[in-house]
């Protein structure tokens, strides 16, 4: 299997489709960029799908081609980690609508020969999951040993369990939610408006000039980044400390509008470095998909009904006590629905100072729980 050209790093596939989208459009062809790690067992029983978050990508444990940084989840995926290529066949695909090689607004529309831009159809979390299912078909994977994801990745995992219950044996949802709250939508709208208010956005048709709405996207990222952290974490890391200045190690107020405070400088850096690796239109499309996500709504308003077919899927949910973006109450609501549906579910709230971002950071307890949960599913 190792010489199978479908498997390995930096892969992509063009599937004929059409993919019928929730918004009514049909997408054809469907391009999916993905990576695989490890070897698929002869009986195909060791496949784990990792679903990435809003600005994540398929480089879960490999060097990012644009930033040169290590994969975004090397704390969870790798030799000796809970998700281990020595034991698992790991698949991670760039979501539909994104900008790292899968079909999205930057993709050239075969009908016109120019990028779709805002003519790309609006997509949903379920559309992303359907595209992933097509990819699994292409890779010859019937049932997943596990689907694993945090944040928007967790939403996809829930959607997997609801849409393809027979294809998921274990589901791991970290810092997730079964729907986007008014507050979540509100923050996303701030980000979208920042992008659209940038004159360089030009209704999304900025690809030809190579002059994207970087300022707007950076502001969107800055606002969003605050929501990924916690007040306590920010206070601990930055407090009210000032930026160092020449001759003044402890900094000084400029009595102007430079980045005086360390937190200002940090956020500006986050914004600026983000625009190098992400497309503004993709940001619009993916935040929209998240805002539309409401798993109960698809099932008559009752979340338990969404999991009616999932009785055989084992679930593990984890939340973080300082995460106010997808707070513990959201995970509990899912747990209650799973209990009502009779699905086997484990849940715990972990303590971490890092807010929503904790799922990407060093939380040893998280690794221990995921490791035990996955091994139990594999009968180890």
């Amino acid at each position, binding site marked *: 299997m190792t010489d199978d050209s479908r498997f390995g790093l930096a892969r992509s596939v063009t599937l004929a489709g059409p993919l019928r989208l929730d918004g009514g459009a049909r997408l054809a062809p469907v391009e999916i960029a993905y990576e695989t790690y490890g070897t698929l067992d002869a009986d195909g029983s060791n496949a784990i799908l990792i679903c990435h978050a809003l600005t994540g990508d398929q480089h879960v444990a490999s060097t990012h081609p644009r930033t040169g940084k290590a994969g975004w989840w090397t704390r969870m995926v790798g030799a000796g980690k809970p998700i281990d290529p020595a034991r698992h066949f790991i698949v991670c695909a760039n979501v539909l609508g994104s900008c790292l090689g899968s079909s999205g607004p930057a993709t050239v529309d075969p009908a016109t020969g120019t990028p779709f831009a805002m003519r790309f159809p609006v997509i949903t979390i379920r559309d992303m999951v359907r595209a992933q299912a097509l990819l699994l078909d292409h890779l010859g994977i019937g049932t997943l040993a596990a689907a694993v994801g945090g944040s928007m990745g967790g939403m996809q995992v829930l959607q997997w369990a609801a849409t393809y219950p027979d294809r998921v044996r274990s589901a791991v949802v970290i810092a997730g939610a079964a729907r986007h709250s008014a507050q979540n939508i509100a923050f996303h709208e701030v980000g979208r408006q920042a992008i659209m208010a940038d004159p360089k956005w030009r209704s999304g048709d900025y690809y030809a000039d190579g002059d994207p709405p970087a300022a707007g996207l950076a502001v969107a990222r800055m606002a969003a980044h605050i929501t990924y952290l916690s007040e306590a974490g920010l206070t601990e890391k930055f407090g009210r400390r000032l930026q160092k200045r020449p001759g003044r190690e402890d900094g000084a107020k400029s009595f102007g509008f430079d980045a005086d405070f360390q937190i200002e400088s940090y956020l500006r850096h986050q914004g600026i470095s983000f625009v190098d690796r992400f497309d503004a239109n993709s940001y619009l499309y993916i935040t929209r998909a998240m805002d539309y996500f409401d798993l109960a709504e698809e099932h008559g308003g009752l979340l338990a009904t969404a999991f009616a077919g999932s009785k055989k899927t084992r679930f593990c949910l984890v939340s973080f006590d300082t995460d106010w973006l997808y707070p513990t109450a959201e995970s509990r609501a899912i747990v209650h629905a799973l*209990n*009502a549906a009779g699905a086997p579910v*484990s*849940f715990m709230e972990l303590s971490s100072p890092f807010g929503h971002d904790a799922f990407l950071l060093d939380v040893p307890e998280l690794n*221990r729980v995921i490791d035990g*949960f996955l091994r139990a599913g594999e009968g180890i």
Partner: protein
Amino acid sequence: MSELRPDLAIIADHVAPASRVLDVGCGDGELMDVLRAKGCDARGIEIDPANVSHAVGRGLSVVQGDADTDLVNYPDNAFDYAILSQTLQTARAPDKVLTELMRIGRHAFVSFPNFAYWRVRLSLAWGGRMPVTPALPVSWYETQNIHQLTIDDFRAFVKERGLTVEQAWFLTGSRRRGEAAANLRAEHAVFLLRR
């Protein structure tokens, strides 16, 4: 299995194989582990995060939650047995917890320390102090046992609620006691109830 706490060993022995079980206050899952080996579909609720982490790490389906608030989310008759071991006396509203327990499970096992055990009576009557015994090892100010009860209290309560005692076991340490004068002689009790 020999290491199981005595009340848990009794429960483990009397849960029918391959039944559906909810262990409320399951600790680190030691009873669930034994029940799983008996082919049971065991689920747990536990309030202490370290215990939940340990239980999930050993592959058990345990949810971090509170018996006082989270039982309402389970459907009627969802389980063959609902188990409440050494937890009733720690509940804020033990009567409501028991009502929920009997709604969720067709049967319920309830175990608790007996506050009318003679050593407890002695400590209170002669020493004039809140008892610290092997079954009640913690001082008054740090105990989680906020609703102490006796075997006779529990019998009266069960009768008042119209529940049926299918079986009862009485223990001092790991030694079984007879039913005679159990309220005086037993340190612990385990009841098997049904509606």
